């Protein structure tokens, strides 16, 4: 018996060792060992006289890739001081033994050609242990776009090594906040997912809440108190033009787009009661989806557009319900202890993320679409409103701190956490922030 076990052990070790030949990461497991990866600064082939500026681009692109990969929690970028090969030589033919020595399992090298009109970026992904190139791609674009190319390259690398779509060429829309706690100034803000390129889309003269992207990431729907009339609005990110959605004779709020981008789904409050409605943006036809004396809000479509999950207190307290997109077949899916809110359907279609409140603590969690398999990912004094990354693997949400009796010490911040419950981290913003929402991949 012992011999069999010993043989089996050898068998496993042998095969386990050979599986390292092709570097791969399984992101569904918890408690991973981040993959040691070396990101060599991109070598710049200079044809113009602005040599210094171009040299910066090469290392800046590498830095973005490195920071992205590190922030995913799946990769451990190695210190550049230990790199033995220079970027130009490494890009042509890496001396794998040198890279193995510093414990790299994967290597990224690249080359940049930049003129005043054009930027060409080439990169290669190498499997150090197998000593071979596993990916080589080139991108041509305008020089201003260099950050986006770095994010797109990260997505390519991430996909090649994990098998999953990445989430790095994306933006986050959120509410930038400041001022005393009882008189907050709020503006719509948009930034790259790495916190850079922040732009403000409104001036802060009226309260704005809960912004969400449309599927093409060109429009935003949100709620505004413009002229002291709380309503759902539509904003064109490019032109800045804002328009109120529909002509509702009362407050509309909690808006989202349908997966095909043709409708906005939202709550409409009449005579104290809030029900869910949709409006077709083209035909302007308004459809009632729920009809119940209880509060119905926070609607979110399944990615195939066939179902809607929403928040209702029809059973006495906030719970999560699922119904067909025409409003039929309403089923409650939360039966656990505590109360549930802000349901949001994963872009993968398999899970619903939510906020849970229990014994004066707040939780961000996920559950299967029938309500089973509830998993709480993080607990806090106050946090809510998760939003999914486009690959359905990461959630972004916001937290508020407890404050003193005059509101001192209050802050609102954005946080992200992996579906596994690991890699909880602060998402840096220029100001206090709340109500984050993740775009889909910009390059799709």
């Amino acid at each position: 018996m012992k011999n069999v076990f010993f043989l089996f052990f050898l068998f496993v070790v042998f095969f386990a060792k050979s599986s390292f030949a092709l570097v791969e990461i399984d992101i569904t497991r918890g408690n991973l060992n981040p993959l040691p990866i070396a990101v060599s600064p991109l070598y710049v082939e200079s044809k113009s006289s602005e040599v210094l500026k171009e040299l910066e681009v090469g290392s800046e692109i590498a830095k973005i890739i490195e920071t992205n990969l590190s922030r995913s929690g799946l990769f451990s970028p190695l210190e550049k001081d230990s790199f033995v090969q220079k970027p130009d030589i490494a890009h042509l033919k890496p001396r794998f033994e040198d890279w193995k020595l510093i414990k790299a399992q994967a290597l990224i090298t690249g080359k940049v050609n930049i003129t005043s009109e054009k930027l060409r970026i080439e990169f290669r992904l190498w499997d150090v242990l197998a000593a071979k190139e596993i990916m080589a791609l080139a991108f041509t674009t305008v020089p201003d776009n260099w950050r986006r190319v770095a994010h797109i390259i990260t997505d390519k690398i991430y996909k090649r090594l994990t098998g999953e779509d990445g989430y790095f060429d994306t933006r986050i829309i959120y509410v930038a906040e400041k001022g005393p706690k009882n008189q907050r100034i709020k503006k719509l803000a948009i930034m790259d997912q790495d916190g850079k390129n922040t732009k403000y889309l409104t001036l802060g003269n009226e309260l704005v809440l809960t912004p969400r992207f449309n599927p093409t990431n060109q429009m935003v729907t949100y709620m505004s108190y413009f002229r002291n009339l709380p309503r759902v609005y539509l904003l064109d990110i490019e032109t800045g033009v804002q328009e109120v959605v529909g002509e509702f004779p009362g407050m509309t709020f909690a808006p989202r787009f349908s997966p095909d981008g043709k409708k906005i789904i939202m709550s409409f409050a009449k005579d104290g009661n809030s029900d869910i409605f949709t409006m077709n943006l083209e035909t302007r036809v308004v459809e009632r989806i729920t009809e119940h004396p209880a509060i119905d809000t926070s609607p979110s479509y399944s990615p195939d557009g066939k179902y809607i999950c929403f928040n209702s207190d029809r059973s006495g307290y906030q719970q999560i319900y699922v119904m067909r997109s025409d409003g039929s077949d309403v089923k409650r899916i939360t039966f656990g202890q505590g109360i549930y809110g802000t349901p949001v359907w994963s872009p993968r279609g398999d899970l619903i993320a939510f906020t849970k409140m229990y014994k004066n603590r707040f939780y961000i969690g996920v559950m299967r679409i029938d309500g089973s398999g509830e998993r709480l990912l993080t607990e806090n004094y106050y946090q809510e409103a998760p939003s999914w990354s486009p690959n359905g693997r990461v959630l972004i949400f916001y937290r508020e701190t407890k404050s003193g009796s005059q509101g001192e010490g209050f802050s609102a911040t954005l946080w992200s956490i992996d579906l596994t419950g690991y890699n909880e981290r602060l998402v840096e913003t220029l100001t206090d922030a709340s109500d984050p929402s993740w775009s889909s991949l910009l390059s799709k």
Partner: protein
Amino acid sequence: MVLGNSIRSILLLIMAAIILSACAAKTTKKVGDYSISQISGDTYTGDETVKYLATGVPDRVFFATNKSILTTASRDTLRKQAAWLRENKNINITVEGHCDERGTREYNLALGERRANAAKDYLMTYGISGNRISVISYGKERPVNAGSGPLAWSQNRRSVTVKAN
């Protein structure tokens, strides 16, 4: 011997009475810096944040957590508001609905709306025309007390009547 037993029983009874009355003497509790004596049935009953539309007419009513039910005190306040509105027929009002910070943002917008409408409906049953009353919910966006604790939260769960013209 019987008498001795009776005296002992009486003494025990007296001791018990003294101990019990000592417990009953406590009517306010202190939690942190806040006195909970201003909250009853999870509803604020104090007047720290109350303003007045006219002499003797408070401008606001308060609610328990997650609720939009009007307490006896709330109905009393609203009857006074209705009387004042009947005397001043040219005044229109806006009723604001508010929530504390311990809830999700979107649901709180709906709950604020429900609270404001509860107050509006009650005013209407006392003869005030719905045309004179508009409603706005601020959810949890405009707390009157910026603190974090049961007292602040109870002061923020409110419906406030504001002159509109």
